[in-house]
């Protein structure tokens, strides 16, 4: 096989694979890149389509935390600087730094009633780590 033909094949195969990867990546990103919602954005844009995995972020409303009957599920309200809220339920252990009034980012899906079922929750880590998506909450005067 001449070197030029071989190079042609090599580049052909590489280009094909790269193209396949690009197409895969395009669809994977379109389907699986998680959009981020705060209560305000949710009110503005409306609920995403059913079953779509998204992220919800904001502050845990003080006094809103409650548990299901068997104690395994926690239910709380997420607020931001807008008058809107999101109801979040999560079955699992609260992250170490989960507190009422603290920042929280939840990954999961919206149900038909607008309630959000989280499958993962991240809480504000420490002073040096703030979920990048969250802007500080105005302290109400």
């Amino acid at each position, binding site marked *: 096989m001449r070197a030029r033909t071989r190079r042609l094949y090599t580049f052909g195969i*590489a280009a094909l694979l790269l193209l396949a990867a690009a197409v895969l990546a395009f669809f994977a990103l379109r*389907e699986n*890149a*998680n959009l*981020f919602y705060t209560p305000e954005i949710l009110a503005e844009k409306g609920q995403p389509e059913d079953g779509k995995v998204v992220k919800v972020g904001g502050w845990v409303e003080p006094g809103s935390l409650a*548990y299901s009957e068997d104690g395994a599920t926690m239910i709380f309200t997420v607020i931001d600087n807008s008058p809107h809220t999101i109801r979040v339920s999560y079955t699992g*252990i609260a992250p170490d730094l989960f507190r009422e009034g603290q920042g929280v980012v939840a990954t999961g899906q919206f149900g038909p009633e607008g309630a959000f079922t989280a499958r993962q929750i991240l809480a504000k880590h420490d002073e040096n780590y703030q979920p*990048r998506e969250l802007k500080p909450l105005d302290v109400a005067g």
Partner: protein
Amino acid sequence: MIELGHFAAFLALAAALAQGLFGLTGQRRLAGLAAYAGFAVMTLSFLTLVVAFARSDFSVALVANNSHTLKPMLYKVAGAWGNHEGSMALWCLVTLGFGAAGALWMRTGRDLFEARALGIQGLLAVGALAYLLFASSPFLRLDPAPFQGAGLNPLLQDPALSFHPPMLYLGYVGYSFVFALAAAGMMEARVDSVWAKEARRWSLAAFIPLSLGIALGSYWAYYELGWGGWWFWDPVENASLMPWLIGAALLHSVVVTEKREGFGAWSALLAVLAFLFSIMGAFLVRSGILTSVHAFAVDPERGTLLLFGLLTYGGFALGLFALRAPKLAGGKPWVLLSREGALMANNIVLIVAALTVLLGTLFPLMAEAAGRTISVGEPYFNLTFTPMLALLLVILPVVQAWAWGKADLKAWSKWAIGGAALALVFLALGVGFWDISIGAALGLALGIWLVFGALWEVKRRAITPGRIFRLPPRVWGMTLAHMGLGLFVIGAVVETTGRYETTVALAEGGSGTVAGWTLTLDQVRAIEGPNWYADRAQLMATRGGAKAVLAPTKRYYPAAQMPTTETAIHKTGTGDLYAALGEQRIVDGEPRWVFRVYYNPLIDMVYFGVILMALGGAFSLWPRRKA
């Protein structure tokens, strides 16, 4: 004391400069001496830092910010590199260490080439040291010295995490010397068999610790975070995976250069890329542009400097490559269906896989620049990275038997029938008996296929059974690595698809069931450690006649005002029963403790597979016995 270290680091900078000058002017012996001297003084400098940490000398700002007198000694010492400045000092030490090791062990018989490689390594050390001394100095004093330190991030107070950074850095920085070899080879436009022999050894020297470092980090995430999984496609995990993939591609391409003098330009390019990806990893992690536990230096200035370094090194090496690549020899002739062709396919797939990881890691940043906030998680990688790699692993057992130049394709139909039969058997078993998904069944078949393929290759090469133990070490290295890969695939598929998880909230004396195990909460007691206090639960787990006691704990570190999760793991032989203790909840006026319980089947095989790969690398480094 610390001033001595500071001074020694300046001496190291001078030595590295000398190493660069002597090296690039072709004085092999002097460059080597400078490399030894640089390594010696940097070791001294690093030791003063470690001693400051061990003695809790809070007049050193870095110690005050990151240590505490009540910490156990191991974590005091490991605390020296558990922060940005200290880890940069380690980076410098390892860079100079590889220079010294190179001066000692390079055996090409080409003085000018070796001198230049040392010279470039010296300049890389100059860059790292300048960054250390002028942008992130660990040697600064505090006046007045505080009585107590702020403590290490408690999440990092863990044995696996103590050795994770040094291992990872040996890998990352190991590629700096491979980079230096590539640049030196391109300078004299001679990237041939002799070059490849040398480059292969150093690539292995970087690849082994990099693999182990990634595995340690993953194991830590598994038992310390309490999330049950071992890989989360977190940006920092991806940052270490990318150089690993490029490094794996390099290990395969450099063999072609060594045996057939082919792929010279390509190998040199990969050698350059492996190091550039390593620095990029450091940049992504340290600049704070990605959200992560590792982002302990959220400092735009440092990020900019790292980016500047990346562009300088990259510009230099890639410019050199563009200049010299056309002059590199092409090697012996080959056709597409040959060992060369197979290794080329390996390289293309590994690089494309690395690019999909890169895209997934950077996409949120690009989207943010465009004004949208999104994140990319596991589903993306399962759809792009996994099929790419699966494709490569399917052909591996078949093509590794192919000859150089032109493959003998007589046996291909046997391989095809065997492979298809294996896949069908597992499909039938998986869907019919085990009740698992089609993907899981095929994944299992793929793992078995790889293990079988690795063993078959030993048999093929040995020809007669008596010669199996006389095979050269590097054949054993390849076999172990490919077998490790197969076991890793089996473990990863079984763990990911067969993991069972649930949450239970138990009152003392209450019980619940998980994956056939009955868990009864005996009691929760308050206990105390050297620098923490904790709630420790005692869970009795029973299944049939089997019994185990699990003691998941929640620690609280007053110095850092931070709780951590200490999971309890019971090894059942085929998997881990894994429990994490959560918070106390008041449900209907009754206090209950919440537990996250997992059953992780075959999780150990994931780590065993990686260890086998690293062991395979070590075998490949072993010199061939003289006949």
